[in-house]
Structures are given as structure tokens and as C-alpha cells.
């Protein structure tokens, strides 16, 4: 690659606000509201801590990076509130298991609260945060990462309960098994846990990570905030900052939700307004928005990002809170290239979410 790595970037409180806003949009309806994790980071900043974002291209090939996240039911996180010290625990457990220290941390998924998650760990330690993640958005399961799609190792894997319970999976068949086992353990711990996925080397991240997604989320959030300040259109700002497409403008007229096999599944029907008057758009979701139909035709599908945002504020709207009467725009943002391969589509394409559709990107004209 011709470009040289960017220098480390010290993040401000305003950067964190922008990151949370951008991550919530990139969550494509899932990933959980970043509010509590953002508040954790702000508390740590107030006490003099800081966080620094580094370019993945600056990583040494043998650098070791902790890929962190929380796991469990968002509702439980409303009561057992995310805690920076807890987020650090599986990182320490993994270090003990490996017998060496990490060099940096990064997000498993940039979408939703997990986009802010590594910032808590960074603010509590001296680890920099690598400007990359494994999804470029939010997805419901652990195997839906670029690293799993690339066939990288899935173990060891560390999980910490809020009590003094740490679990390290030293060996697993594949990431799907890590998902199955850790999901069970998480349920037993009260349906919320902090996790550290299989350690990634600098070389692996440079080859298979989804790069610069944290700075993209910050830029996305900043564009929305500056549009608001200038009384401009935050939705246009998202489209410009994210190279996206506006697919539909309308009002939510029906929401159908059901919990099956541990997921929040359903669909939201949107009646057209403005340029889309007379048309109807239906977005299906499984925790995150997965497929969008204009009238009866599937026009957008995962791994393209389907973002439903508030028409006025530009805020992301979660699949757990979308409701009748909301004025929304349905936007598409380009999905990560690594998911467009055969293996990528097998993991996160429409069929992985139960839709008998051949993937066609909305960005292919």
C-alpha cells in the first residue's frame, strides 16, 4: 500500500461523543446503545486517563492485539451496567494464559456499544486502540467476523463474569463452536459477560481486519454533529461521510418483533413520504437489519449495511426500539470487501439469515 501510516491520535471527549454516535449508526439497528460505555470513558477521562488511536498499518507484524467486546442481552446491560474494570478482566486472563502482554486492543465490532468497548480498556491501561475491527458494523454472532471468514484461529478465547469467574476456551473446532459454548456460559453468568477473542497479530490485522473503522465512525459522528450545529441535514451528512445511498424516506407504520433462538427477529414496515410517496419499504431484522424490500423487491441486503436513522436528528434507530410513527430514512453504506467473497457471503450473506436470496449489492448499478 502506498500510503504511510497515520501518526497516533489522542482522543478527546468530543471524539468519544462522535464515536458513540457513529458507532450507533454503524450498528445497523443492533450492537446495543453505547451510552453506558461512553459514560465510562468520560468518567475515566475526568480522572485524568486518556486513550490513543493507532493506525493498524503501523503495527509490527508480530504485535499482539486483544480483540474485545461484551456478550449477552442488552437489557441485562441496563441493570448490570458495563464497567471498564470488568472489560479489562478477560484481557488479563488471556495474558496470563498466553504468558505475555498484549501490545494493543481493538473492537470485535465497531457497531453499537462494542465500538466504544475497547476505549474503556484503553483508558484504564496504557494500551493503544487499533483503528480497526472485525465486522465494520454489528452482527449477532462471533463467527461473523472477517477473521473467522479468513479461517484464522478461534482459540484461545477468554470470558469473564462480573464475579471472580474467568473461562478460557483453550481449543475449539471453529468460531461457531466458540459462539455456542460462550453463549451458554454467558447465560449461566446472568446473560452478560466481557470477552477477549483469539489474539490477533499485527500481520493478521493488516491482512484480514476491517481497517480504519473507528476513525470512520468518529468522522461519521462528527459530520452528524456539525450538520446539527449548522442546522443542516444530518442524514445527508451521513450519506456524504459514509459514501452511502438514501434508499427510502418514510414513516414506520408497523413493527413485528419476536424472539426466536435467542435473537430478536422481525420486520418494520415503512410507508413512503416525500419522493417515495406511494411506495412501501420493509426492513427485516435479526438483532440487526438484514434485508430491505422496496414494495416486493429485495433491494438491499447484508453484508451491505442497512441503517435506519431518524430523519431529523440522524440518530441510529435500534431494532429493539423502532416504533410506529417514527420518521426515518433507510440508508445503505458499503459493506466490507472481505464479506463479498464466497466464504464471506456464506457467513454473513442473506442466506446466513434465512433469506433465500442471491446477494446483490445495492452499490452495483
Amino acid at each position, binding site marked *: 500500500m502506498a500510503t504511510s501510516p497515520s501518526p497516533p491520535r489522542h482522543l478527546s471527549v468530543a471524539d468519544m461523543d462522535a464515536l458513540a454516535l457513529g458507532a450507533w449508526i454503524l450498528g445497523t439497528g443492533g450492537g446495543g446503545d453505547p451510552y453506558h460505555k461512553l*459514560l465510562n470513558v468520560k468518567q475515566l477521562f475526568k480522572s485524568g486517563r486518556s486513550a490513543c488511536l493507532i493506525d493498524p498499518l503501523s503495527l509490527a507484524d508480530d504485535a499482539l492485539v486483544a480483540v474485545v467486546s461484551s456478550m449477552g442481552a442488552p437489557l*441485562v446491560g441496563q*441493570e448490570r451496567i458495563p464497567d471498564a474494570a470488568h472489560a479489562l478482566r478477560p484481557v488479563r486472563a488471556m495474558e496470563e494464559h498466553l504468558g505475555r502482554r498484549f501490545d494493543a486492543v481493538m473492537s470485535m465490532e465497531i457497531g453499537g456499544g462494542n465500538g466504544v468497548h475497547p476505549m474503556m480498556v484503553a483508558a484504564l491501561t496504557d494500551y493503544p486502540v487499533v483503528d480497526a475491527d472485525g465486522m465494520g458494523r454489528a452482527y449477532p454472532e462471533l463467527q461473523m467476523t472477517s477473521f473467522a471468514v479468513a479461517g484464522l484461529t478461534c482459540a484461545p478465547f477468554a470470558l469473564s463474569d*462480573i464475579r471472580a469467574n474467568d473461562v478460557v476456551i483453550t481449543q475449539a473446532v471453529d468460531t461457531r463452536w466458540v459462539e455456542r459454548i460462550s453463549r451458554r456460559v454467558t447465560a449461566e453468568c*446472568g446473560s452478560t459477560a466481557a470477552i477477549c477473542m483469539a489474539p490477533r497479530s499485527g500481520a493478521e490485522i493488516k491482512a484480514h481486519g476491517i481497517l480504519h473503522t473507528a476513525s470512520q465512525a468518529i468522522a461519521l459522528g462528527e459530520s452528524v454533529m456539525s450538520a446539527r450545529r449548522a442546522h443542516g441535514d444530518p442524514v445527508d451528512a451521513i450519506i456524504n461521510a459514509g459514501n452511502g445511498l438514501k434508499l427510502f424516506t418514510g414513516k414506520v407504520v408497523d413493527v413485528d418483533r419476536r424472539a426466536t433462538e435467542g435473537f430478536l427477529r422481525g420486520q418494520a414496515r415503512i410507508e413512503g413520504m416525500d419522493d417515495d410517496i406511494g411506495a412501501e419499504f420493509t426492513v427485516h431484522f435479526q*438483532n440487526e437489519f438484514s434485508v430491505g424490500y422496496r414494495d416486493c423487491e429485495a433491494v438491499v441486503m447484508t453484508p451491505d449495511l442497512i441503517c435506519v436513522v431518524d430523519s431529523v436528528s440522524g440518530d441510529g434507530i435500534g431494532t429493539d426500539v423502532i416504533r410506529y410513527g417514527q420518521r426515518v430514512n433507510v440508508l445503505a453504506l458499503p459493506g466490507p470487501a472481505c464479506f463479498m467473497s464466497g466464504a464471506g457471503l456464506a457467513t454473513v450473506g442473506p442466506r446466513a439469515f434465512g433469506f433465500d436470496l442471491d446477494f446483490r449489492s445495492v452499490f452495483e448499478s
Partner: protein
Amino acid sequence: MSTNTGQVPPVGIKRIGIDVGGTNTDAVLVEGSTVLGAVKTVTSEDVTGGVRAALKNLAASTGDAMRDVTAVMIGTTHFVNAVVQRRDLNRAGALRVCLPASASLPPMVDWPDDLAALANGGNYLVAGGHEYDGRPIVALDERAIAEAGRKMKADGIAAAAVSAVFSPLTDACELRAADILRNENPDLHITRSGTLGRIGLLERENAALLNACLIDLSHRTIDAFEEAIRSSGIEARLYITQNDGTVVDAATARDQPVFSFASGPTNSMRGAAFLAGIGDAIVVDIGGTTSDVGCLKSGYPREANNVVKVGGVRTLFRMPDLLSIGLGGSTIVAERPLSIGPRSVGHRLRNEALVFGGETLTLSDIAVAAGLVEMGDKARVAHLPSTLIKDTITEARRMLTEAVDRMKTEASDPPLLAVGGAAMLTPERMDGICEVVRVPHHAVANAVGAAMAQISGEVDHVFRDMEREELLAEAERMARDRAIAAGAAADTLKVVDIDSIPMSYMPGRAVRARVRVVGDITALRAAKSAEPSST
């Protein structure tokens, strides 16, 4: 088509409804469904002076009819105003039963600094709390709770808020913690978060802390209301209206000031429904600086599911779902380009509006120029171009129409009830609305809404491994039990709100259900049957 207004008060039962607002104190005397008298007085500095004056004026205008009143219902914005204006607050200690979880974000973490500085009476985090399925997270640290109680006592803290993880589902930890605190200091006033709020620890704890720091003011105010009624020669029970459009008796209300925060808009909506005889409707209350839009179902306001900020503090408890837009009689209109609000001249309307000799173009001026209302000097707006008047009215109505449409939750065409001082801005017809109803006597809708209130019971619970019908029936039974315990007559209970949402990523098909029921006040029916009926 018959409409259920949710308000069918027993015939012959006389009630007085009083709305104590920031500016005016309104009072009405209602018998059955007839308004016998209505008065408007100025709210006094001490609040209760205005109540006394209102009762005196009401007695003067209705004469003997006041004698056999059985209940006085007061709705007041006094407590929410105290939070917003940062006055009359006492310090409150915060005990959170949560460790080892939820430690990094202490109580009052996201409060405005000025409010926290006034209200913070010390934070205490102790081990304990529950999982979502009721299991303990860890053993409750009773010794730490006792120590917290002793420290609060030594610090001279007289009120505390106790919150525990998942207390809306299992209150054992909060109850035990309150017992231990009381054991250390019998005089400590304790607010338990599980009695107020929903799932969402920080927001529920915030509600409990706001409640705790209003306790002194609440006790003083409710006692003074009772004294004002007694000294007016009325022998009637005092009830205080709540955010959800129901009432609780004065003894209960003393300990729950936060439940009266939104009683102003709630009573206004319910009063409008009663006066119009329509129970399912959208209500728009167009006042001086804002238009508040709410939604009534069977005469009760739909509840907000989201976080509601009070004085800058995030809360999540029983509040009506309201949409406020910056559009009212005092809203400033700018020309070239035309824009309406959100700035407003507020209470200075009578000095600054053109029709009152001022320099600022307001929506009231436009309304006068358009002939929608008469106030001030119409000659002072005669120079306004007709296109400006027409375009402004069109834009104001577009804003109202959009706000109303946003509050609809289903694709039907409900009626719209228009109340408030600037209700004339409401258009005659609106898309998606079957009929625009201008409510008669809307000036006292608040007080009428207070007078018509009933008693409720609510449940918000997570059920596991049950069929939907089965769990909803169980939730309804729990809600009915709570309403009856609060003083509702069992045979009058009706479900006014029912909602269930499946919870993802949890084992055992967990479903969170919320059910609310309302009914008549048992004590009033008893009072009625015990007394000879009046003519």
C-alpha cells in the same frame, strides 16, 4: 359507536379538582359528570395560599353545593418545578446494591453539576442485587449497609434512595437493605427504586434520588394542602394526581413526589377527553411557548417507553408520552426567510407582542391579524402583508399536523382534541384525523382532569417459559392486586395498557410484559353508600 372515556364517575359523588400550576391555580366542582362550578386564581408563593383562595372562590360561586364534597383531587407541578429551578431540595444519600457489578458509574454520574451539588448526600455501593431470573448476584453485604446507615446518620442525612440490580423484578435486596438502614436510623426516610421505576438501573436510581431529595418539600406541601382543605371547612379526603392520570391518597403521595411530575399535561389531556366526551384521541395543548401533543387510550395518556429528562436528569418511570414543539402564542415569527420559533417572548407576551404595543412579531399577532382571535390592539398588526399572515398560518399548521401525526401509533384516523390558550391555531381539518374537536371550557381542563381521576395498578415483569396468553393473564392478575391494594374497587378495574416484548439473547423464552389497570376509588363509593344522598 360508543366511546370509552375511562371516566365514568359515580353519579352523586361530588369532587373538587384543583390544578396548581406555575402561574394559575384552577379549581372545579364536579358532580358525576357535570361541572357545577369553575374558578381561576393566581398561584401564591407558598402554593397553599392559592389553594385556599381557590376553594374560597369556588365556595362563593357554587354555594351550598360544596358542603357534601367527598374528595379533593390536587394536581401540582410544584415538585418538578423545584427540580428544574433547583430550589427547596434536601440532600439524599444513595445506597446502591450492585457490587461487584455496576461499580464504575456511581450514583448521580450524569447529573448536571449544580443539581448534584445541592442534592448529593453521599454514595454507598455495596455487594448484592439480583440476576434477571431472581438469583442473587452475590450474597448481600449487610454489614456494609449498616455502616452506610451509620455514616448517613453521622452526616445528618435524613433521606436516602436505595436501589438494587433488577429490583423491578425482585425486591428482596432493596427491602432488606431498607430494613437495615432503618434499624440504624429509624428516622431516615427511604425511597426504594423498585417502587418507582422500570428496568434501567441508572435511570431508576435517578428517579429514586430525585424523589428522596424532594421528600422534605413533599411532606411540607401535602401537609399544607390538607391544612388548607381543613381550614376551608371541607371534610373530604385529599388525593394527589399522578403522571399516569390516576390518583393516590395523600399519605401515599407524600412519599412519591416524582409521580406528580407530569400531572399538569396529563390532567389537561384527561380533562379535554372528559369535556369532549371522547376517550381515544390525540390531544394538542397549545400554550404560550410550546405545543404538547399526547395520545389518549380509553381516557388515559399513553406512557413514554423512553428516557425522559427532568431538570437535566435522565429518568425512566411512569410518565406520559408527550411530544413538545416550540410553537405557541408567544412564539417569535421571523420574516425573510419565514421561520416560526423555537424562540419565544414567553410570559412577556403582554409587553413585547405587536398587538400589545411591543416590537416583536409573535404567533399571537399573526392570529389576531388573521382574525382567529381577538386580543390587544388589532390596528397594530394591520400593516402585516397578507402573504406573511397566510404563509405563517400555513407553516404553523404544517408543524402541528406533523407533530400530531408523529404521536399516532396506528394507521387509523383518530379525533384531535385542541386545548390551550392558543388552540385557535389548530386547523379545522387535518390529514389522518377524522375530526378536530375544540374542547369547551378548556381553560379549566386541568382541574377537570384532576377531579375525574381513578386509581391504578401497574406491573412490569419478565416471565419465562410461559405462553403469551398465560403470562399476560398472570401480569394482569398482579396489576389488579396492586390496584386493589392501592384502594381501587375490584369490580371497576379495567385494563388500559398491555404490552409484551420478547427478550433476545436470554435462555428460556423470556418475555417482558407490562400491564396497567385502573378503577374507581373504593373509599368514595363507601362514603357514598354511607351517606344519605343529597338532592
